[in-house]
Protein backbone atom coordinates (compact mmCIF):
# COMPACT_ATOMS: atom_id res chain seq x y z
CA UNK A 1 0.00 0.00 0.00
CA UNK A 2 1.35 3.36 -0.96
CA UNK A 3 1.84 6.19 1.52
CA UNK A 4 -0.87 8.25 -0.15
CA UNK A 5 -3.47 5.49 0.18
CA UNK A 6 -2.53 4.93 3.81
CA UNK A 7 -2.94 8.66 4.53
CA UNK A 8 -6.36 8.72 2.92
CA UNK A 9 -7.48 5.69 4.93
CA UNK A 10 -6.17 7.26 8.15
CA UNK A 11 -8.02 10.52 7.44
CA UNK A 12 -11.25 8.62 6.73
CA UNK A 13 -10.88 6.69 9.99
CA UNK A 14 -10.30 9.90 11.97
CA UNK A 15 -13.34 11.55 10.34
CA UNK A 16 -15.51 8.51 11.14
CA UNK A 17 -14.40 8.44 14.79
CA UNK A 18 -15.01 12.19 15.14
CA UNK A 19 -18.50 11.84 13.62
CA UNK A 20 -19.40 9.02 16.03
CA UNK A 21 -18.04 10.95 19.03
CA UNK A 22 -20.09 14.00 18.04
CA UNK A 23 -23.28 11.92 17.80
CA UNK A 24 -22.62 10.44 21.22
CA UNK A 25 -22.02 13.88 22.73
CA UNK A 26 -25.31 15.12 21.26
CA UNK A 27 -27.15 12.19 22.82
CA UNK A 28 -25.66 12.96 26.22
CA UNK A 29 -26.68 16.62 26.02
CA UNK A 30 -30.21 15.65 24.99
CA UNK A 31 -30.67 13.12 27.79
CA UNK A 32 -29.48 15.53 30.51
CA UNK A 33 -32.43 16.69 32.67
CA UNK A 34 -33.30 20.34 32.07
CA UNK A 35 -34.18 22.73 34.92
CA UNK A 36 -37.85 23.12 33.92
CA UNK A 37 -38.28 19.35 33.74
CA UNK A 38 -37.11 18.82 37.28
CA UNK A 39 -39.86 18.27 39.82
CA UNK A 40 -39.59 19.84 43.23
CA UNK A 41 -38.62 17.38 45.89
CA UNK A 42 -41.73 16.44 47.81
CA UNK A 43 -45.24 17.60 46.95
CA UNK A 44 -46.86 18.43 43.68
CA UNK A 45 -47.32 21.76 41.95
CA UNK A 46 -50.72 23.32 42.52
CA UNK A 47 -51.31 25.97 39.86
CA UNK A 48 -54.59 27.06 41.49
CA UNK A 49 -53.23 27.88 44.92
CA UNK A 50 -52.35 31.48 44.11
CA UNK A 51 -55.72 32.06 42.54
CA UNK A 52 -57.50 30.65 45.59
CA UNK A 53 -55.33 32.74 47.89
CA UNK A 54 -56.16 35.86 45.90
CA UNK A 55 -59.87 35.03 45.99
CA UNK A 56 -59.74 34.75 49.78
CA UNK A 57 -57.73 37.95 50.01
CA UNK A 58 -60.25 39.84 47.89
CA UNK A 59 -63.10 38.68 50.11
CA UNK A 60 -61.22 39.83 53.19
CA UNK A 61 -60.38 43.19 51.63
CA UNK A 62 -64.01 43.71 50.66
CA UNK A 63 -65.15 42.99 54.21
CA UNK A 64 -62.73 45.52 55.76
CA UNK A 65 -62.38 48.58 53.51
CA UNK A 66 -65.12 51.07 52.77
CA UNK A 67 -67.56 50.16 50.06
CA UNK A 68 -66.42 52.95 47.74
CA UNK A 69 -62.82 51.84 48.17
CA UNK A 70 -63.67 48.24 47.42
CA UNK A 71 -65.55 49.18 44.26
CA UNK A 72 -62.64 51.39 43.26
CA UNK A 73 -60.23 48.49 43.64
CA UNK A 74 -62.55 46.10 41.84
CA UNK A 75 -63.08 48.45 38.92
CA UNK A 76 -59.76 50.29 38.66
CA UNK A 77 -57.20 48.06 40.37
CA UNK A 78 -56.11 50.53 43.03
CA UNK A 79 -57.46 52.36 46.08
CA UNK A 80 -57.29 56.10 46.70
CA UNK A 81 -57.00 57.12 50.35
CA UNK A 82 -57.04 60.74 51.36
CA UNK A 83 -54.38 61.90 53.77
CA UNK A 84 -55.24 62.57 57.37
CA UNK A 85 -55.46 66.05 58.78
CA UNK A 86 -53.76 66.55 62.15
CA UNK A 87 -57.10 66.20 63.97
CA UNK A 88 -57.63 62.81 62.36
CA UNK A 89 -60.28 63.64 59.78
CA UNK A 90 -59.90 63.09 56.05
CA UNK A 91 -58.56 66.19 54.37
CA UNK A 92 -60.35 66.70 51.06
CA UNK A 93 -58.11 69.60 50.07
CA UNK A 94 -54.91 68.04 51.27
CA UNK A 95 -53.14 65.12 49.67
CA UNK A 96 -53.95 61.56 48.83
CA UNK A 97 -52.37 58.19 48.22
CA UNK A 98 -52.89 55.66 45.49
CA UNK A 99 -52.42 52.12 46.74
CA UNK A 100 -51.39 49.61 44.09
CA UNK A 101 -50.74 45.92 44.78
CA UNK A 102 -47.02 45.19 45.04
CA UNK A 103 -46.10 48.60 43.71
CA UNK A 104 -45.11 51.80 45.47
CA UNK A 105 -47.71 53.96 47.16
CA UNK A 106 -48.04 57.19 45.19
CA UNK A 107 -48.66 60.44 47.04
CA UNK A 108 -50.35 63.18 45.05
CA UNK A 109 -52.34 66.40 45.33
CA UNK A 110 -56.01 65.84 44.44
CA UNK A 111 -56.49 69.53 43.61
CA UNK A 112 -53.98 69.55 40.78
CA UNK A 113 -53.27 65.82 40.30
CA UNK A 114 -49.59 66.64 40.84
CA UNK A 115 -47.54 63.62 41.80
CA UNK A 116 -45.49 64.13 44.95
CA UNK A 117 -43.52 60.97 45.61
CA UNK A 118 -43.41 57.20 45.55
CA UNK A 119 -43.19 55.26 48.80
CA UNK A 120 -41.73 51.81 48.29
CA UNK A 121 -42.82 49.43 51.01
CA UNK A 122 -43.15 45.69 51.24
CA UNK A 123 -44.41 43.19 53.78
CA UNK A 124 -41.96 40.31 53.93
CA UNK A 125 -42.94 37.46 56.21
CA UNK A 126 -40.06 36.95 58.68
CA UNK A 127 -40.71 33.20 58.62
CA UNK A 128 -40.30 33.04 54.83
CA UNK A 129 -38.31 36.10 53.76
CA UNK A 130 -37.49 34.66 50.34
CA UNK A 131 -40.76 32.83 49.87
CA UNK A 132 -43.83 33.91 47.95
CA UNK A 133 -45.34 37.35 48.40
CA UNK A 134 -48.67 38.23 49.94
CA UNK A 135 -51.58 37.92 47.55
CA UNK A 136 -52.25 41.21 45.74
CA UNK A 137 -55.34 42.10 47.76
CA UNK A 138 -53.63 41.30 51.07
CA UNK A 139 -50.78 43.63 50.09
CA UNK A 140 -53.34 46.38 49.38
CA UNK A 141 -55.10 45.63 52.67
CA UNK A 142 -51.89 45.85 54.68
CA UNK A 143 -51.04 49.21 53.08
CA UNK A 144 -54.58 50.46 53.62
CA UNK A 145 -54.52 49.52 57.31
CA UNK A 146 -51.13 51.14 57.78
CA UNK A 147 -52.20 54.37 56.11
CA UNK A 148 -55.41 54.46 58.11
CA UNK A 149 -53.80 53.59 61.43
CA UNK A 150 -50.21 54.79 61.34
CA UNK A 151 -49.68 56.82 58.22
CA UNK A 152 -46.58 58.58 59.51
CA UNK A 153 -44.92 55.34 60.57
CA UNK A 154 -45.55 53.81 57.16
CA UNK A 155 -44.05 56.84 55.46
CA UNK A 156 -41.05 56.72 57.77
CA UNK A 157 -40.41 53.03 57.11
CA UNK A 158 -40.86 53.28 53.36
CA UNK A 159 -38.17 54.25 50.87
CA UNK A 160 -39.19 57.53 49.34
CA UNK A 161 -38.42 58.30 45.71
CA UNK A 162 -39.44 60.94 43.25
CA UNK A 163 -42.32 60.00 40.94
CA UNK A 164 -41.23 57.84 38.04
CA UNK A 165 -38.82 55.59 39.87
CA UNK A 166 -40.97 52.47 39.55
CA UNK A 167 -44.31 53.67 38.24
CA UNK A 168 -44.68 55.48 34.95
CA UNK A 169 -45.99 58.97 35.81
CA UNK A 170 -48.06 58.97 32.62
CA UNK A 171 -49.73 55.77 33.72
CA UNK A 172 -50.46 57.24 37.17
CA UNK A 173 -51.95 60.35 35.59
CA UNK A 174 -54.09 58.14 33.38
CA UNK A 175 -55.19 56.29 36.52
CA UNK A 176 -56.14 59.60 38.14
CA UNK A 177 -58.15 60.49 35.06
CA UNK A 178 -59.82 57.06 35.17
CA UNK A 179 -60.58 57.64 38.84
CA UNK A 180 -62.17 61.01 38.12
CA UNK A 181 -64.32 59.46 35.37
CA UNK A 182 -65.24 56.57 37.62
CA UNK A 183 -66.34 58.95 40.37
CA UNK A 184 -68.29 61.08 37.91
CA UNK A 185 -70.24 58.07 36.65
CA UNK A 186 -70.65 56.70 40.15
CA UNK A 187 -72.02 59.94 41.53
CA UNK A 188 -74.66 60.31 38.83
CA UNK A 189 -78.14 60.26 40.37
CA UNK A 190 -79.12 57.27 38.21
CA UNK A 191 -76.10 55.31 39.44
CA UNK A 192 -77.03 56.08 43.02
CA UNK A 193 -80.60 54.87 42.46
CA UNK A 194 -79.25 51.72 40.85
CA UNK A 195 -76.95 51.02 43.79
CA UNK A 196 -79.63 51.68 46.39
CA UNK A 197 -82.03 49.42 44.50
CA UNK A 198 -79.42 46.71 44.33
CA UNK A 199 -78.73 47.05 48.05
CA UNK A 200 -82.41 46.77 48.89
CA UNK A 201 -82.71 43.71 46.69
CA UNK A 202 -79.66 42.03 48.13
CA UNK A 203 -80.79 42.72 51.69
CA UNK A 204 -84.19 41.23 50.92
CA UNK A 205 -82.64 38.34 49.03
CA UNK A 206 -84.76 39.22 46.01
CA UNK A 207 -82.64 38.66 42.90
CA UNK A 208 -85.54 39.51 40.56
CA UNK A 209 -85.57 43.02 41.97
CA UNK A 210 -81.93 43.46 40.98
CA UNK A 211 -82.73 42.67 37.37
CA UNK A 212 -85.71 44.97 37.40
CA UNK A 213 -83.67 47.89 38.65
CA UNK A 214 -80.89 47.25 36.13
CA UNK A 215 -83.33 46.99 33.26
CA UNK A 216 -85.01 50.21 34.30
CA UNK A 217 -81.64 51.95 34.32
CA UNK A 218 -80.79 50.56 30.91
CA UNK A 219 -84.01 51.92 29.45
Amino acid at each position, binding site marked *: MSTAAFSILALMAIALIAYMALGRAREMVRSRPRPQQRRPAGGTIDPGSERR*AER*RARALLKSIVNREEWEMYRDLGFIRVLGQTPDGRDGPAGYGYLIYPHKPIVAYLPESNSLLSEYCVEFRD*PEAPYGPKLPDSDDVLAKWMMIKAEEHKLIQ*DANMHLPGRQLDPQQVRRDLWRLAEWERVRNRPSARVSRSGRDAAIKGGDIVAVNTVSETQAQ
Partner: protein
Amino acid sequence: MRFLRLMPGRGEVVLAEGDPQLSDDELRLVEEFRRQLDLGMWAAVPIEQGATGRREAVMVKDFADVPRDAERVIFFPRAAGG
Protein backbone atom coordinates in the same frame (compact mmCIF):
# COMPACT_ATOMS: atom_id res chain seq x y z
CA MET B 1 -63.03 37.45 68.22
CA ARG B 2 -60.88 35.93 65.51
CA PHE B 3 -57.19 36.30 64.91
CA LEU B 4 -56.31 36.25 61.21
CA ARG B 5 -52.84 36.28 59.72
CA LEU B 6 -52.04 37.34 56.18
CA MET B 7 -49.86 34.55 54.83
CA PRO B 8 -47.71 34.83 51.70
CA GLY B 9 -49.05 32.66 48.94
CA ARG B 10 -52.02 31.49 50.98
CA GLY B 11 -54.22 34.40 51.94
CA GLU B 12 -55.46 34.73 55.48
CA VAL B 13 -55.46 31.89 57.98
CA VAL B 14 -57.33 31.74 61.25
CA LEU B 15 -54.87 31.58 64.14
CA ALA B 16 -57.26 31.60 67.06
CA GLU B 17 -60.88 32.21 67.83
CA GLY B 18 -62.64 32.84 71.09
CA ASP B 19 -64.72 35.04 73.31
CA PRO B 20 -62.51 37.41 75.30
CA GLN B 21 -65.21 37.56 77.98
CA LEU B 22 -64.40 33.95 78.87
CA SER B 23 -61.22 33.62 80.88
CA ASP B 24 -59.96 30.46 79.13
CA ASP B 25 -60.49 31.98 75.71
CA GLU B 26 -58.93 35.24 76.76
CA LEU B 27 -55.82 33.45 78.02
CA ARG B 28 -55.47 31.63 74.71
CA LEU B 29 -56.01 34.82 72.73
CA VAL B 30 -53.46 36.75 74.80
CA GLU B 31 -50.87 33.99 74.31
CA GLU B 32 -51.42 33.89 70.57
CA PHE B 33 -51.34 37.68 70.36
CA ARG B 34 -47.96 37.81 72.11
CA ARG B 35 -46.62 34.94 70.03
CA GLN B 36 -47.46 36.71 66.78
CA LEU B 37 -45.86 39.97 67.93
CA ASP B 38 -42.77 38.03 69.00
CA LEU B 39 -42.63 36.53 65.52
CA GLY B 40 -42.36 40.04 64.13
CA MET B 41 -45.95 40.62 63.08
CA TRP B 42 -47.97 43.78 63.39
CA ALA B 43 -51.57 43.70 64.52
CA ALA B 44 -54.39 45.86 63.23
CA VAL B 45 -58.05 45.95 64.17
CA PRO B 46 -60.62 47.00 61.59
CA ILE B 47 -63.14 49.34 63.17
CA GLU B 48 -66.21 51.24 62.09
CA GLN B 49 -66.74 54.76 63.27
CA GLY B 50 -70.10 55.00 64.92
CA ALA B 51 -71.10 58.45 63.75
CA THR B 52 -70.09 58.26 60.09
CA GLY B 53 -69.96 54.52 59.52
CA ARG B 54 -66.55 54.97 57.91
CA ARG B 55 -64.30 51.98 58.13
CA GLU B 56 -60.88 52.58 59.62
CA ALA B 57 -58.16 50.54 61.28
CA VAL B 58 -56.13 50.91 64.44
CA MET B 59 -52.78 49.34 65.19
CA VAL B 60 -52.50 47.55 68.52
CA LYS B 61 -49.36 46.54 70.36
CA ASP B 62 -51.01 44.96 73.37
CA PHE B 63 -54.03 42.72 73.73
CA ALA B 64 -55.47 45.18 76.24
CA ASP B 65 -55.62 47.76 73.43
CA VAL B 66 -57.89 45.59 71.30
CA PRO B 67 -61.43 46.96 71.45
CA ARG B 68 -63.64 44.52 73.36
CA ASP B 69 -66.20 44.40 70.59
CA ALA B 70 -63.66 43.81 67.82
CA GLU B 71 -64.54 40.89 65.59
CA ARG B 72 -61.15 40.47 63.95
CA VAL B 73 -57.54 41.19 64.61
CA ILE B 74 -55.38 41.07 61.50
CA PHE B 75 -51.72 40.12 61.82
CA PHE B 76 -49.44 40.98 58.95
CA PRO B 77 -45.67 41.23 58.37
CA ARG B 78 -43.96 44.44 59.35
CA ALA B 79 -43.52 47.05 56.68
CA ALA B 80 -40.03 47.60 55.37
CA GLY B 81 -38.63 49.79 52.64
CA GLY B 82 -39.00 48.03 49.32
